[in-house]
């Protein structure tokens, strides 16, 4: 079962999921990318250069941190954090963009494009493009540009152009459509850096591989620090890249429970969440067959999440496979609980998590509370919350009864 889980049968497929459901115009570019990736994997110089980039640019390895005060507060399992929030640019996204920019250079392409929701992938792409002197255009929904204004500024400061997308719900899905349309006309000289383990083959595989440094490091750090593997590993799932990067090195460790947390939004009825696996079913979106949120005619459903990075009606095909094989359990965390988790972690550990990561923190706290103190729960803290602070302040002002709630708990 392990080998089945790890190697797709037909290339580009994870069980029945994945594939390349794209316009013919893009097929050649996907073939080129697949070949280039195989060549890069066989080239020790590529691995060496990627490794250098991860160290010198991203600042890896990221720390493993024992969240002692949080664990004490929860009163259950010991909670560890894999600190992807400490990476340069503030999230796990940089791992992928550095790898893909190196592939882009191998292909001799001079321009990169990306879609972004929370802006973290856009910032990470802009950063990698600046490091290597590539032209960079980032597509971003108008609603996300509002929610994540700081990241828009950061991208522009680094020389990227942010292209505003006004179609659909003006969020991540619509930005992805627009990036694909750009690529339809620019494939000859442009590489599309997809920001998650979604899209047509080979993207889900490439992005997972570039992100798997998270899980590999975390696994050996756990062995070193605690002398054993964690009992539970938790990560938030938007498209699923931080989760895939964290989970994949643990897939073969059958005793380790893997928990993916999707955006529960304001409730699990149509249009109010972004929980593609928990509430969706197999369908096709953005080039691959996976779990999607659609109406019965096959039209993509409207989605909602407090966090721009999870606000997406699809999920990577490998997650669909892990779900179907019962290797990973997928659950949801709603907007309110995520917001609560931001406050909890900030006060307990002095770490302000991204709203996306807060979904994982919330679910992990719940799971840890069910376990005894000899158990270990490891959280992928995918990013830091600086980008969200304005949004969080607004949201807290809305939920705060009298403002005293905050004052009372603080010391």
């Amino acid at each position, binding site marked *: 079962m392990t080998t089945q889980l790890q190697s797709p049968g037909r290339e580009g497929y994870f069980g029945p999921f994945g594939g390349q459901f794209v*316009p*013919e115009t893009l097929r050649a570019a996907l073939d080129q990318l697949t070949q280039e990736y195989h060549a890069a994997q066989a080239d020790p110089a590529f691995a060496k250069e990627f490794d250098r980039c991860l160290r010198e640019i991203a600042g890896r390895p990221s720390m493993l941190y024992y969240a002692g005060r949080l664990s004490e507060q929860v009163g259950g399992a010991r909670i560890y954090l894999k600190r992807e929030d400490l990476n340069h640019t503030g999230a796990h996204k940089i791992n992928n963009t550095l790898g893909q920019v190196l592939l882009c250079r191998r292909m001799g392409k001079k321009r990169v494009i990306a879609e972004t929701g929370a802006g973290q992938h856009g910032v990470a792409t802009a950063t990698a493009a600046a490091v290597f002197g590539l032209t960079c255009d980032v597509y971003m929904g108008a609603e996300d540009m509002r929610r994540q204004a700081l990241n828009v500024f950061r991208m522009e400061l680094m020389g990227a152009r942010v292209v505003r997308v006004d179609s659909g719900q003006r969020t991540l899905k619509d930005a992805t459509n627009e990036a694909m349309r750009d690529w339809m006309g620019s494939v*000859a000289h442009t590489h599309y850096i997809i920001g998650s383990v979604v899209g047509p083959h080979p993207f889900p595989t490439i992005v997972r591989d570039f992100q798997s440094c998270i899980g590999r490091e975390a696994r050996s750090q756990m062995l070193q620090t605690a002398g054993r593997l964690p009992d539970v590993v938790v990560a938030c799932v938007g498209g699923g890249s931080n989760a895939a990067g964290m989970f994949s090195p643990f897939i073969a460790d059958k005793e380790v429970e893997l928990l993916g947390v999707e955006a529960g939004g304001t409730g699990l009825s149509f249009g109010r969440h972004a929980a593609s696996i928990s509430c969706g079913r197999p369908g096709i979106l953005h080039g691959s067959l996976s779990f999607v949120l659609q109406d019965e005619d096959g039209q993509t459903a409207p989605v909602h999440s407090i966090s721009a990075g999870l606000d997406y009606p699809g999920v990577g095909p490998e997650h669909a496979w892990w779900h179907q094989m019962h290797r990973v359990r997928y659950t949801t965390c709603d907007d309110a609980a995520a917001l609560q988790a931001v406050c909890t972690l900030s006060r307990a550990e002095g770490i302000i998590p991204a709203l996306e990561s807060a979904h994982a923190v919330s679910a992990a706290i719940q799971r840890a509370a069910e376990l005894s103190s000899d158990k270990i729960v490891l959280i992928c803290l995918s990013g830091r919350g600086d980008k969200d602070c304005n949004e969080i302040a607004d949201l807290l002002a809305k939920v705060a009864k009298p403002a005293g709630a905050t004052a009372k708990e603080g010391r």
Partner: protein
Amino acid sequence: MGLENNRIVKKFAALRAAGKQTLLPFITAGYPNLETTAAVLRELDGAGVGVCELGIPFTDPVADGPVIQASFTAALAAGVTTRGIFDVVRQFRRAGGELPLAAMVSYSIIFRHGVETFVNEAAEAGLDGLIVPDLPLDESAELERFAAGGGLALVLLIAPTTPAERRLEIARHSRGFIYYISVAGITGERTALPEQTLAAVAELRRHTDTPVCVGFGISNATTVREVWRAADGAIVGSAIVKRMEEHAGATPQEIAGVVGKFVRELMA
């Protein structure tokens, strides 16, 4: 069921026998409403066009430019569904309409309905072909099988980026005609045809007897005429939909009249 009685196949056989080229207008089904679609089909049936492409609105058409996207969004906002579109086709056939019809539809929609169900319903309604712009050859085996069984022509697409050998492989599998995409890019009006297009079509025709039609970016009679020098048909989409958009407030008859006048100009 074979494809000998398929309207698209028969149409191109007749055109070839007469040594003629044709026009393939694309309209967004249900835009601005289903009554207009019905009226436009009747109009086109008498206008001497080859095949009408009925675009089934989709939320995420990655191969389409702003004009067709906007028409999809408007049609969906007005509540148009695939079944509603099939009903219009069914009524058109019941009233004796003989115009060959191909649905241009995302595989997301086909997959959600179920490949077999979708094909059966489309064939039963009176459609003759399917064009699935986001389904490359490598993923099309299942649809190919059911379409053949249901008597529907599955039209496959070739892009300027398609390698030579793959072009022939696609040509071998395509039924009804082969859709040659003139530009690497999305749909939308362009003023001129890329230079290589005609040479590519001519090369393709040396290897296949299946008719070849050219689409993406064709917007005026001059370009249609140019395409006809090498191909069996010219596909015009955004230019028609834009005219429908300009008259979106008019009656179905009026919009049908606008479309009819424009396609006659294109074929003049």
